[in-house]
């Protein structure tokens, strides 16, 4: 087993709290050495997963919980977002996710919105598990082992 640090957060499934998750994540990702751009990408990915838990998994104000697990490795960050409200057995759940190629569950879920699409585009590996609540697994390498989507021109903020 690779060495990793594991940080877990549990919080009420409310939109108010997603900003707090982003702050925590940005602390974790910055101290790991992710670039500004990558930290911003990670913030979007984790927010999208939390937003889905808040909006789809629970009817409004039902008292549901979201659990977010951060697996911190030397060369990558793993994030799991689950709306079952239970703590992760991180490694067991990872094992259950099965091989990457069979990630058809993502397509299955992605009916209309942009959320899961953004997660898939911004992260290096994404898997969705769909029993007893939804668990989204996301992983991003530290040194960006991932091609660019299109060319982004070096456009200044203002002239």
């Amino acid at each position, binding site marked *: 087993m690779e060495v990793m640090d594991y940080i877990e957060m549990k919080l009420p499934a409310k*939109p*108010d709290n*997603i*900003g707090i998750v*982003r702050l925590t994540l940005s602390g974790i990702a910055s101290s790991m050495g992710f670039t500004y*751009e990558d930290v*911003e990408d990670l*913030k*979007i990915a984790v*927010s*999208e997963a*939390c*937003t889905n838990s*808040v*909006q789809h998994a629970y009817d409004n104000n039902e008292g549901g919980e979201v659990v977010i697990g951060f697996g911190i490795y030397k060369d990558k960050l793993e994030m799991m977002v689950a709306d079952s409200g239970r703590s992760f057995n991180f490694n067991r759940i990872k094992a259950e996710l099965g091989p990457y190629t069979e990630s058809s569950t993502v397509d299955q879920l992605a009916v209309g*919105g*942009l*959320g899961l*699409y*953004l997660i898939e*585009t*911004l992260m290096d590996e994404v898997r969705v598990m769909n029993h007893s609540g939804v668990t989204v697994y996301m992983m991003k390498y530290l040194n960006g082992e991932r091609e660019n*989507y*299109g060319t*982004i021109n*070096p*456009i*200044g*903020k*203002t*002239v």
Partner: protein
Amino acid sequence: MKMNINKQYKEKEVLVFVEGEIDAFTAPKLREELWHLSEKENATVTINLKEVTYLDSTGLGVFVGLFKRLNSNNGELKLIELSNRLYKLFEMTGLINIMDICVNSEDGGR
């Protein structure tokens, strides 16, 4: 987590400044603030996003909704002064090809 909205009215045009983070918490407030602007015929709404520090699919959803409604009322939506980050999001989602988006106010919003 804060978001501020400032509106400047000028005949048929409205210039909106948005500041802060747009996410699942603040997007409903933004939608509410913008929605009535799309009711009139031929309205032009320009949104300056220079000071938006965070945006995700919930915010994109607000702009797409506004865009559709303005279009169906013969109006226009312009998004201006996007940061590189925000531009990247509109690019990734393909919205850059559909909507009137520019990174630089000098172009007059085109």
